[in-house]
């Protein structure tokens, strides 16, 4: 996971320089692929779609690389593209995110898998379902802060929003997420 201080992450080192358009895009991929992968997942791309979404994100980045002006970090810029990619995937599937895959895509009885794997999938699906309760603007702030460990000023900069707006969205997102977790726990306790 990314640390709060962007300078402390390998992904952000030497990241503000404008890349050579003819340069080594593979190096960009190496630095940011995992961040983009988990960002796409956290933003609602289902597990079965995430590789396509990663590919789409980097293909779009390659096409637009000459538009990158170095004013933001490359990581931030890629995240913005990944956010749009995630939105498209969610719209394409006519649902908010990957949460619905919990029971539909991985039925244990039909596709027996090791218990640990099943539980991991369930955990991912549960988190996706809980994140699905947030609208997109709040979700993005929440994901960057709570999952990626970004500082709120950095999030505001990343998203191009005012600092107060970022705080406000995070506040609302936490409140809603807390309620969603409470509902989940209540259901669990009834079983």
């Amino acid at each position, binding site marked *: *996971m990314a640390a709060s201080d962007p300078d402390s992450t390998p992904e952000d080192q030497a990241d503000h320089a404008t890349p050579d358009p003819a340069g*080594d*895009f*593979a*190096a960009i*991929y*190496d630095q940011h*692929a*995992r961040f983009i*992968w*988990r960002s796409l*997942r*956290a933003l609602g791309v289902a597990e*079965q*779609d*995430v*590789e*396509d979404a*990663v*590919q*789409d994100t*980097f*293909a*779009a980045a*390659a*096409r*637009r*690389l000459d538009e990158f002006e170095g004013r933001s970090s490359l990581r931030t810029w890629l995240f913005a593209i990944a956010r*749009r990619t995630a*939105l*498209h995937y969610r*719209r*394409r599937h006519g649902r908010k995110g990957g949460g619905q895959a919990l029971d539909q895509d991985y039925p244990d009885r039909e596709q027996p898998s*090791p218990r*640990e*794997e099943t*539980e*991991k*999938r*369930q*955990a*991912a699906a*549960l*988190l996706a379902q*809980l994140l699905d309760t947030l609208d997109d603007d709040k979700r993005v702030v929440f994901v960057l802060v*709570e*999952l990626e460990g970004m500082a709120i000023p950095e999030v505001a900069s990343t998203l191009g929003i005012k600092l107060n707006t970022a*705080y406000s969205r*995070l*506040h*609302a997102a*936490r*409140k809603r*997420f*807390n309620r969603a*977790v*409470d509902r*989940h*726990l209540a259901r*669990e306790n009834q079983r």
Partner: protein
Amino acid sequence: MKDLSPQARQLIERSKACFDCSDADTARLKTRVMAGVALAVTGSATSVAAATTTLAGSSAASVGASGAAAAGAATAAASGAAATGLVGKALLVVCAAGAIGTGGYVAQSSWRKGEPTPRTEAALIAERSETPEPAAPAVQPTIEALDTESVDEAIVPATKPQQPSKPARRLTEEIEPATEPTPVAPAEPSADEQAPELLRDSGLTAELAYLRTAREHMAAGAARDAIETLRRYSRHYPGGQLAPEAQALLFDALCAAGSDEAARITAERFADRWPGTPLASRLTAGCPAEKGSR
């Protein structure tokens, strides 16, 4: 500022790694991504070769790093599981990023089994960039034939090349616009016979060769040859990993051949399949005013 409840924070801390992947995952995906990137940027065989050659040298190191990550993650999983208790039985097992990718997803996802290692596949692509392209068809089918023929019908099981094992992107019914011209059964040249070595290949290698050939036809002003090449691509790779690129190329070829209506339908299907992408925006804008049809 509202804080997360302890239960919510615990849930996040335990399960956020479930969204992560391993270095092995990204290394494996890198072959496909870089091929798509190379095609997206210039579409030239040179760039594909350069990108994949670079890939061949770099992916092995990425794979090598995953072992240490998995070891550390296993420790994290153990400590997280010990602290479980608040958030319900679904989270009894903590996701550990390195362990997921190297020992988890890869092991249980059937479509990943048997895939070549990233280095091997990349090396194949780099090698392929210097090999002959698929042969041009002996008989030129009409544009109308392209527009109507079912992709699935033309697949010859006995010579069907190995398909990409991941069925995520279906090219079937996508590359062929749904116009209603007179069906014409072209004397389909057997690509299998003309390029058996190519078609025995797997993964992206042969797919790239088809797309490069189509682009070269386009560069030479032979739009119909390009269309035919893409049609053969769609037959052999109905779940092709380069389906978006192939369909965008088909659009360009149809425009160049003067088949604007078929191009429009292709664009609509593209936008439906991959909405909001830069390519979708370009395609839905319609054929350019000037055409270089032959």
